[in-house]
């Protein structure tokens, strides 16, 4: 069985697993909704203020960041060591990490779309260039998913994995977040960025490099 076929099969398995125990995915979606609601409750009168678009941009990505960490932490922790050992006897480790990255990207995309929808509903929608904003969401979800999936693979080996996720993950995510903020503030109209294509290609480059590193390094991680 080729790695690609294995990956597809494992993605299918992830989905099936998620479908059977719906609490995980519904938990994430509820998490997003309640966070957005808290943002809404605590930012009364923000719509009228001059800072609305600045605050919207910052809050949106903070909500996405924390929800992503929450969603992805479980990807390696939830399966116990024996089951992982079973996977590794069956398939190529690259297929394992690749399937998790792809699956988490899908989850993050759904989650980002939901928070975008919830933000628009509760707080308002200042986005002017929808297309550019969706490019930001897409590349951001990929970057978050690659980094956090790999970090969760590292953190799951230690006992205090929840703390480690934040300590290891946040600093590494910063280049991605900074570039995303530029992209989205341009889409919102906060600033005029003349080099938007460069930003997008930088983001793609960072995603690809981290993806390559994750695929190369993961085989050394799983052996226990």
């Amino acid at each position, binding site marked *: 069985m080729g790695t690609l076929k294995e990956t597809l099969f494992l993605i299918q398995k992830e989905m099936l697993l998620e479908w059977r125990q719906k609490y995980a995915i519904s938990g994430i979606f509820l998490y997003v909704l309640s966070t957005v609601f808290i943002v809404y409750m605590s930012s009364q009168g923000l719509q009228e203020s001059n800072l609305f678009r600045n605050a919207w941009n910052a809050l949106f990505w903070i909500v996405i960041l924390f929800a992503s960490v929450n969603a992805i932490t479980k990807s390696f922790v939830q399966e116990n060591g024996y089951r992982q050992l079973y996977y590794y006897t069956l398939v190529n480790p690259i297929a394992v990490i690749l399937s998790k990255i792809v699956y988490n990207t899908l989850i993050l995309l759904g989650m980002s779309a939901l928070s975008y929808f919830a933000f628009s509903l509760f707080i308002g929608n200042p986005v002017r260039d929808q297309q550019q904003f969706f490019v930001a969401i897409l590349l951001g979800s990929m970057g978050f998913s690659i*980094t956090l999936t*790999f970090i969760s693979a*590292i953190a799951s*080996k*230690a*006992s*205090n994995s929840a703390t*480690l996720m934040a*300590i*290891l993950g*946040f*600093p*590494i995510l*910063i*280049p991605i977040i*900074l*570039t995303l903020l*530029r992209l989205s503030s341009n889409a919102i109209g906060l600033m005029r960025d003349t*080099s938007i294509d*460069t*930003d997008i290609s*930088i983001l793609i*480059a*960072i995603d690809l*490099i*981290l993806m390559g*590193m*994750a695929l190369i*390094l993961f085989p*050394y*991680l799983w*052996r*226990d």
Partner: protein
Amino acid sequence: MIKKHWWKALAVLIVLYSIIAGMLIPLKPGILQVHPYNLEAGTSPTLIVNTYNTKFEQGDNIRAWISIDSNYAIPARETRMLNNRQLSIDFDLPTFLPFVEKSKSLALVLDEKEHGAFVRPRAINITQNTIDTTRAQSVWTYPPIKDIHRYDKMSFPMRGIIYETIKNTFYHVPLWFGMVLILLGAMIYSIKYLQKADPFADLRVLSYTRIGVLFGILGCVTGSIWAKNTWGTWWTFEEIKLNVSAIALLIYLAYFVLRSSFEDEEKRARISAVYSIFAFVAMVPLLFVIPRMTEASLHPGNGGNPGFGGDDLDNSMRMVFYPAIIGWTLLGVWMANLVYRADVLSYKMMEKELS
């Protein structure tokens, strides 16, 4: 003995050289202050000029100009030396000046045989009430600036605001270069560990990371002192380079937290090696790409500022700066080696106790 340790002696020599040369070589002469700043066309003002690093003596033939552009300059009527760092210069400003602005900031140029020529851009501001450039050009009798001298002694560039702190280039910048190179070393030993599962390679990674982080902290401290003296603040979150270097340090501090959360040695070594490689790769865009795409930066070479080099890094600076990078990096490697050997000793002692 010498064959094995020559590079340590080299490291010490180069670092000593960079400190001694950096401290002893003076800045070029320059103009610190010109008073008064606002002048009017058609008057005969007397300027008091404070200079820096000059040793004027009675009888020196000091010439002075207010430079308008490469063709037009107003020479001084008389230059008197008040003391070896202060001059009093008389000018006769013509009524008509060859530029169209009502008022313009102009450079003051001084020239003397021993000191060479030196300039202060925007030293004075001339206001003209009647603007008539054609008349100014037709009646202009002054010759352009020529026959100026060169300052031939070994010296560093004199720049406004920075002044003597330009010498921090030899300590602050090489520390960052050293940090990146030493962390690269840590990454290479991580790869070695993953290939061979050698516990000593893991100790190497640990020692290199420790020294790399130490260099990073020292880079922050030297930069902070520099910032206090030039930007007027110890730390500013407006400045992207300060933010990304703080984050780079966080990435590597997390490495120590990660290590401390494992009991099993083999597992700790393997997983922290994996993280070390991933962290280095993630740090590269952080340190080298993000600062370059940000608009606002006070560091040279970033955010549309003139690049690091050109006039600011002239040949005399290069002669100290490039060796300093090599010297500090070698010194860092030596320090990492010492830490490594101490770690190996305690590792062996622990093994002995266990057996």
